[in-house]
């Protein structure tokens, strides 16, 4: 069973029109939710997206976009207090 985080928050945007079907984004997704449908990018479970940005980073044509970041409350707090270094990792 896949643990799911909050519903409907992911900023992942796919543009099948731009997609070349090269598949570069497929292996890098840590939740393996991307696949090719008729040679174009598609997503099987948006709520499983953790916005790590690996797919967008590895798309050569910009067919995948996401506001990438680390889902870490300590880092959000640290940046709110402008302490620079995050509490994560």
């Amino acid at each position: 069973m896949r643990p799911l985080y909050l519903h409907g928050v992911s900023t992942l945007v796919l543009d099948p029109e731009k997609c070349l079907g090269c598949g570069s984004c497929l292996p890098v997704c840590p939740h393996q939710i991307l696949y090719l449908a008729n040679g174009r990018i598609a997503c099987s479970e948006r709520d499983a997206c953790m916005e790590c940005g690996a797919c967008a980073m590895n798309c050569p044509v910009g067919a995948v976009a996401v506001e990438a970041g680390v889902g870490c409350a300590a880092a959000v707090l640290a940046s709110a207090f402008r302490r620079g270094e995050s509490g994560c990792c």
Partner: protein
Amino acid sequence: MGRAPRVGSELSLGDRLHGCKVRWGWGRYDYTVVPGLYALGRPDAGSPVLVTANYKLSFDALRRELKGHNLWLLSLDTNGINVWCAAGKRTFGSETLARAVRSSELAKLVKHRTLILPQLGAPGVSAHLVKRLTGFTVVWGPLRSADLPAFLAAGGRARPAMRRVEFPLRQRAALAPMELMPALKYALPLAALMVAGSWLLAAGGRWGPGLFMAGALLWAAVSGAVAGPLLLPWLPGRAFSAKGLGLGMLAAAIYLAVWPAPPLPAWAAFFLILAVCSFLVMNFTGSSTYTSLSGVRKEMRRYMPWQALGAALALGLWFWALAG
């Protein structure tokens, strides 16, 4: 192959002791290997090149899993941060990798033009950009170093299960000490303050009310930081703060059953445990493998006012109890 230091797969007693130490947060941000190229076993010009970070815990895990293999390990300078977090900050990134490939003169050392990268490095590394910068092709290795032998044996192909991140009990347990130690860093002095405060405020210098509230705080810290990670998938709700609230109710019920108190301090302890547990489990988002920044922001906006209210209520009721 003179310049690359040779390393083995055997971890020394010191490596293992230090590994335990950093898992408890001791010297964790200073646990590094010198970045650069290493020879594991006796690699030659045809041996695979594996890229990693320069966090010694990661580096040691990698060489331990690759026992009996001959290959090159290229350690990038990530300031001693693990691959996934460093990729998120782009210190494990395309440019860092390109610089390391150049400075190690890898192109002269090996005949092939392939770099095997950990899959979790992908948020920071763009394979097509690396190809353009270095001429090397990036092959995404498995997500866990334990799968590397099978990956290499299969000619550099990962089974689907090797590409999916999970969050099993064993991993959550390994992370709990790093939740507990920072939590105690705040909870212990605060607990001491509560004991001292109540002794001063309560007439007749009674220890009881202070110990009761300090105990509730420490119990909440241990519950949120240890039981939270362990019980995570079974706690109700999707937001970690909500999971922490559920856990807090359970923890408060146990605490008050073990240490019965009059209504006023009992409610104070109840709200304190709820607020602290919710906050601490919310803080576990950063260590989890499936939370997104958008989601974390959303739950922080929604739950932090309640956590603050709970803590304020707890202190208010407790002062009232002390005064009364």
